């Protein structure tokens, strides 16, 4: 009885596995699955997990990669609205958004074929959109005049509109300009212009340096003169303040002007008589007046 139970369990497990293999299928995180019944697409599954199906040949499973795939178109010439020629290449991130619509449009659901179709659409959209803009819309030092993002959006909208119109089941996730350039024949003239601009810049830089240096120096000298003049004015003011302060004390000298004058004269005398002075005097001068009473010197000068 025990042996039969084991046999039954093993058989049951095998049966369950077999049934699961027949009636279930997995969808991975990156996949989108189209379930077809008798080769007719019936439902699309975008979310990962375990799902039920009828066994083959009733139901068949078609798997697609729903991740974003990127590609870039050729770096090709485009005429702009101002008749200038620009080279540009654009990168595109796209993914299968509606596998049920995508599946029958491309043989075997080939992403390579889908990308080829996208490239064709992108080329015409790029030519059309860029042809409506001037070079100044692509390169401009004034950000308000730059239409870089606008042009990218125009191209993306145009491609997306064509995809929707044809119901390809593809969504453009993002689109951006990868490279821009000028025709090879034009680059040499750009180099010549750049060289001329640089040469002028060199001359300007030299004269600007000298002029600016002279300007800085003269401004400094003027400011220095102002500083000294201000200081001199301050000194005069300070001197005046001192004199005013001293004048308050002059009242003391008013008590006896003769003494005040005498003191001043005495002070002036002391200050004026230095080593380079020669003083000639005779007996009338004090203290030499003391000689007046002495007998006369017959050899005196």
């Amino acid at each position: 009885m025990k042996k039969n139970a084991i046999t039954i369990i093993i058989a049951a497990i095998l049966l369950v596995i077999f049934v699961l293999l027949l009636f279930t299928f997995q969808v991975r995180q990156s996949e989108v699955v189209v379930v077809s019944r008798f080769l007719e697409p019936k439902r699309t599954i975008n979310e990962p997990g375990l799902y039920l199906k009828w066994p083959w040949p009733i139901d068949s499973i078609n798997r697609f990669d729903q991740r974003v795939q990127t590609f870039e178109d050729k770096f090709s010439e485009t005429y702009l609205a101002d008749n200038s020629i620009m080279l540009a290449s654009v990168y595109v991130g796209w993914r299968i958004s509606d596998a049920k619509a995508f599946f029958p449009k491309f043989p075997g659901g080939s992403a390579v074929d889908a990308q080829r179709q996208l490239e064709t659409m992108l080329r015409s959209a790029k030519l059309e959109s860029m042809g409506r803009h001037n070079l100044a819309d692509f390169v401009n030092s004034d950000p308000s005049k730059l239409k870089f993002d606008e042009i990218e959006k125009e191209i993306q909208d145009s491609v997306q509109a064509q995809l929707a119109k044809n119901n390809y089941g593809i969504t453009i996730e993002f689109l951006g300009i990868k490279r821009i350039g000028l025709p090879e024949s034009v680059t040499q003239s750009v180099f010549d212009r750049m060289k001329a601009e640089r040469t002028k810049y060199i001359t300007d830089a030299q004269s600007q340096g000298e002029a600016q240096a002279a300007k800085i120096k003269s401004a400094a000298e003027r400011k220095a003169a102002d500083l000294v003049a201000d200081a001199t004015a301050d000194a005069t003011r300070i001197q005046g303040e001192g004199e005013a302060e001293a004048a308050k004390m002059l009242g003391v000298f008013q008590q006896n002007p003769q003494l005040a004058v005498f003191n001043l004269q005495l002070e002036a005398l002391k200050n004026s008589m230095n080593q380079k002075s020669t003083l000639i005097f005779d007996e009338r001068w004090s203290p030499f007046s003391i000689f007046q009473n002495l007998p006369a010197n017959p050899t005196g000068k």
Partner: protein
Amino acid sequence: MSEHDHHDHHHAEHADPPALETRDAGSQALAEALHSSFAIVKVAMVLLVVVILGAGFFRVNPGEKAVILRFGKPVGEGQKMLLSSGKFYWSFPYPIDEVVRIPISEIQKVTSTAGWYYMTREEEVTYETMGTEPAGNGINLDPRKDSYVISADRNIIHTRATVYYRIEDPLAAIFHFTAGTNQQFNTGGISNAVQNAANNALVATAARFNVDDILTLDIAGFQDAVRHRLNDLVEREHLGVAVDQCQVQSEAPRQLADTFRLVTAARQSRDKSIQVAQGDQNRILSEAGAQAVGITNSAEAARNRYVTSVQSEAEAFTRLLPQYESNPLLYEELALTKTMPEIFTNVEKIYLPQRADGRTRELRLMLNREPPQNSRAAGGP
């Protein structure tokens, strides 16, 4: 079963004992064989279970991360989804669980492809190690190989960005981007997307910066703007990464390298002239400031001296006034007599005694028209 058959069967059971014994031995042998087989099957099943459970253990190797897909759906959310390298984990056997190994480091690096000129591998190595750029004078840019950006002032310039980024949202970065049409999971798709974003950021940002700003005047501003644009694109395109660094390197076209070197030299010369002038400016202003302070200080000192002097004179005056008023002539005589020796010590003195006859002496002074040279050199008047 018919009655006749039943009869025959009954008859055989009782009529042929040796044959019956032989059949029992066979059954027993068969039973024993089956018993042994079941034992082997049981052991095999246990072993199978052990093998299956044991096979669920796996190690994430260094330099890679792993994600467990359970029925195709990643286990865990956010960063927890990524199993760290160097550790052991366990998962259910396939097809319940599937371990996806992704070669990935903590910090990813990608370099832009648009904007730089073509270099061979050898030239690239020489440039990276020695900083020597390949010769380019006299050679036109080949649009098929050489790349560049156009600046706002319509000049041609080379620039490239090296981007270091981390994967913040593995679900977005790894499971939403692919580098090809295969079913493998790797960082090729996200790396490609970040590289395209870096290319676009360079081209779009250079389009609004002048060449001199990119090369010299506003290098940091240009780099910031590129990084800002790159972050915008990362967010707009839902790349699920965080940019840690975006280093931008810019160069003038090799065809104009000599000219740009002269510009750099001219700019340095101009800056040097200005710096020298600024140095002079500082010196002049410093000297003038010192002179001004000196003048003011001197005036302050003079004022103080003057006021103090007048004050002391006033005090002396007040002290001496009573003596003077008592006998002015005596006071004056005394003061003069007291002062004269002080004066006489400093001056050259010539004493002329009175003539004996009482007549006035005639005094003649010999004055040179031109003072002697020696006395001038000695600091004469």
